[in-house]
């Protein structure tokens, strides 16, 4: 699947972050849990239906300013695709205007 940079990822129904004060942060989903490290947690925390993929990429490029920006973008898109394939993510798109 080709990801659109202006799409807003949001965790799918049945998928949520574990609570912050209970050990390592995990992405909880039906019959499995994914342990999140630094960057993956930063990505998943932004999958709130508010941030666009472009905003997530720019945000992490700032945090990881020593890494090559293209590499950061590629890694994020790869990770979002993985989550989507696991049915952990949905994407909401901007409403199209002027098409009534």
């Amino acid at each position: 699947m080709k990801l659109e940079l202006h799409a807003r990822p949001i965790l799918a129904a049945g998928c949520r972050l574990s609570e912050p004060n209970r050990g390592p942060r995990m992405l909880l989903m039906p019959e499995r849990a994914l342990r999140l490290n630094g960057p993956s947690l930063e990505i998943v925390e932004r999958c709130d239906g508010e941030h666009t993929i472009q905003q997530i990429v720019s945000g992490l490029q700032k945090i990881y300013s020593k890494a090559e920006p293209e590499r950061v973008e590629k890694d994020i898109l790869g990770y979002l695709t993985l989550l989507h394939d696991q049915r952990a993510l949905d994407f909401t798109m901007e409403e199209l205007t002027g098409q009534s």
Partner: protein
Amino acid sequence: MTAIIPTPLALIAELTHRCPLHCVYCSNPLELQSRGSELSTEVWTRVLKEAGDAGVLQADFTGGEPLARPDLVELVRAARGSGLYVNLITSGLPLDELRLSELAKAGLDHLQLSFQGLREDAASEIAGTRALEQKRQVVGWARAHRVALTLNFVMHRLNLDQLEEMIAFGEESGASRMEFAHVQYYGWAFANRERLLPRREQVERSISVLQQAEARLRGKVRVEYVVPDYYAKYPKACMGGWGRKLMLITPSGDVLPCHAAQLIPGLRFGNVKNQALQEIWDSSDAFQKFRGEQWMQEPCRSCDRRAQDFGGCRCQAFLLAGDAAVTDPVCTLTSQRAIVDEIIATTNAAAPAAIATKAVWLYRTNPA
């Protein structure tokens, strides 16, 4: 050297053995526990908190039929309040829309709805009651109340050829996950195995149908398949390894390493009524017995796969070979595999009709 005891990840809570269905492959033991022996709301609430504190991530409420417990909403709230991800495994039969909305509000994360089949006659023969129409309604309510939904189809000889219909139904339903779990041969299913075990060509066809569905639906519906392990080359990593990830609590509070562990003679189980969950997990006889690798015999002991499949299933070793400490007889690296090969040969040699008419079903009963 002290062995490192792993952290439990999921708690399977068998809230009751009562059930409106009488499935011939039920995973409950043949000796069902009575209503009078069931744990109280207070004990379950304490146990769920202990589970959260022990690092458990998920609670699977199951049964019997967990909806038979009038305090289910309260238990879901207690589990969620203890930091657990809450999963309800149900036939959906005693459910109505109001109760589902209450469960959702109490923090239910995910509903796993089991299907006996899509053709009412065949499904009713398996479950001993008519159920399909109600399940269709539950799918709609789950969607309306935004509860994540997995459709769980229990697969066997009589419905394995209906896969395409099931996939189409799941696709249309809006479920995010479909699971095609082949019957596992313990308890009731072991007693009915002769009529449930599929033929080899059915298994091979089903794998290719599901691989195609998985690829076609990727990103839309997650498709998972549990193969009948008698046809596999190596055993399954049963429960992710004994005492490594999962524990199960029976309706009366015994803590087991797996659904069927009570059939292994001589195991002593801790009970949550008089012992803390963490202590039972760490040190009870039943969990320690087959934890790690000390108990293993050849060929497991020196096998490269032992950290992958942990020697397979202890209950299956006992049921088929009469010894819970030998390699799972499914494994083609053990001489005990001859037992499984003979069962498969019998299944595949007989004409299909001969098996269907030969044996009668042993229907699951209901506890007192």
